[in-house]
């Protein structure tokens, strides 16, 4: 079974993502701040990471950049969640290395579909 790491300081969002992804037969690990997220990513080496941009201390950009510049983790697909619709271009365009971006409010079934695209290729 594929492992997915969800990092967001909004517990309710994590909860709902976890629920639908587990229903789709993925194993979910959750972190509620950037620091824990980064630690957990290195520990479990997930198959995909869903990352919120706006988090205190280490934000999503930073985590993404740290992982994408590390040979060990650079192949893990990263989905970024943002509340700013126009930020998507920036996320992909700048050197954060994110693979996809999801704008709040997002559609859970679409997220599951996108995850499947990345993990079942």
């Amino acid at each position: 079974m594929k492992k997915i790491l969800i990092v967001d300081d909004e517990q309710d969002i994590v909860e709902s993502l976890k629920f639908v992804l587990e229903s789709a037969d993925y194993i979910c690990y959750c972190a509620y701040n950037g620091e824990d997220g980064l630690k957990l990513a290195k520990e479990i080496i997930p198959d995909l990471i869903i990352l919120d941009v706006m988090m205190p201390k280490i934000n999503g950009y930073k985590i993404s950049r740290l992982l994408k510049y590390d040979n060990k983790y650079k192949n893990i697909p990263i989905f970024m969640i943002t509340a700013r619709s126009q930020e998507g271009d920036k996320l992909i365009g700048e050197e954060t290395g994110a693979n996809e971006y999801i704008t709040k409010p997002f559609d859970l079934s679409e997220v599951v579909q996108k995850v499947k695209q990345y993990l079942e290729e």
Partner: protein
Amino acid sequence: MGNILFISDRLEKIQQYTNIFNRKPYNFTVVSDENVILETAELNSPDVIILDYKFNNIKKNIKNLKSIYNSTAFVLLTPSQGLEQDLTKYINAFITEDLSEDLVLSTINVNLRTKQSLEQLSATNKNLADSLYRLNVLYSTSSQFAGSLDKEKLVDYMIEGLDKSLSFDLTCTLAFCTDTEPVLILNSLYELSEELVSAIKLRTILNYKSLFENKTPPFEIDIEKLKVIKTVKYPANRFTFNLFQYDNMFAPISLGDNFFGCIEIFKETPFTSDDATCFQTIAQQVSLPLKSATLYQEIMETNLKLEKLERLKSEFISIVSHELRTPLTAIKNSLDILSSGRCGDLNEAGNKFLAMAQRNVQRLSGIINDLLDLSKIEAGKMDYHFTNMNIHSVIEYVKFALSGVAREKGLNLIAEETANLPEIYADSQRLEQVLTNLVSNAIKFTPEGKNIIIRSHIARAEQLKAPDCFKDDIKKLNGEYIVVCVEDEGIGIAEKDLLRAFDKFAQIENSLSRKIGGSGLGLPIAKQLLEAHNGTIWCDSELNKGSRFYFAIPVSKVPSKMEVSVN
């Protein structure tokens, strides 16, 4: 009447002429020694020089004197007959030896009067030249005044104008307008010692206070804190306290109730009444532009404040909207999970309310998106991706996206397009947003069983017809346009409300839109998006018959393959 220098070494002649001229109004001086001619002449500053032809080296002496006393009349005492011809060119008049006393007197008098008239003429000429120069200075200073709204520059121009017209030794300008604090601007010919500057400071403050004898001055000045800006032309020399014995003039710089400062000016030589007029004129002239500059500054400051407020408002909306999105996402996700059936089935009423909650989440997120769009447009942060494109694709997209919704409501959504329309240079996503909005509105406001038609055609700006309230927008257009029209058979809009439909939040006050939904921001956003395309939007409508919403986008002039992104 005049100074007469008599040059002769013949005693009898000296005697004779002394008898004639040694009385008032003449000032008669005799020189007999060739070696002291120039010194004596200098003391006498002669109006007329009478020379004896018998005098030594007469020719040489005349030449020497002529080179110094160019405007003096030279009279030669000559023999009765026979005169050296080449002397005539230096000589203004001749007196023969045998001439009677009366005739000698009258000859000299004529020459004295001529000399005086010439002097007067040249003095008048000089005055005229001075006045002309001063007028020129005043003219150029007042043009400088008229051309500037910068208070510091205005004060500089004033001092510059005074320098040119009056050539002062020192000006002390106390200015209340060039800084937040009063400033003492000193423009000095020579260096001023610290003690002298302190004395000038005190003097200026006293002068200033004397302007408001019975009233309180508009500003309290602390002598310790008064800022001094000093410009010295020749710093190698120094002024002493003697400066205060120089001639001086003082004037306030004010207009009505507006007080901008005062100025005192010092000069070693006395000022004339013309100088005083000139000084007053310049000091008065600068007041008007200073007032304009003050008003201009106030307007600019207010504008800046307004701009800042506007930006704050946009930022506020943007931040609030982002903050709203996160809880909204959590609600939406929860509702989606509930409706997916993964938490068990709900009964009929449960499903109904769940659907209601989902519908309203959708609506709320639409409103938040509109608010964000509008704040982005107003903050100038909206990104546009312009390409050469065909309007056809936009119409197709919107028809495809909304035909389902239309069908559900029992409406016919028809696209009547003109074939082979030229390309436009536009952001297709933004045009889709505009057309989606227009068609959604039409769907909202049209009762069951009726038609909604999307039309498109090409038209020249002058062919476009719109109700009077949109005339100004239409007038701005010129050239060829692709016009898209969304026609419905809905409730319509009263003519007086047409323009209001494009106002921000206008519909929020309207009970109907509250019943039907929407932020009321769709049309204002559409208007702004179209303006970013150099296009426009308008509508005409008849109550209870239906509305036609039009938008026009200019036909692209140069077909280009490059995709350009414009902020």
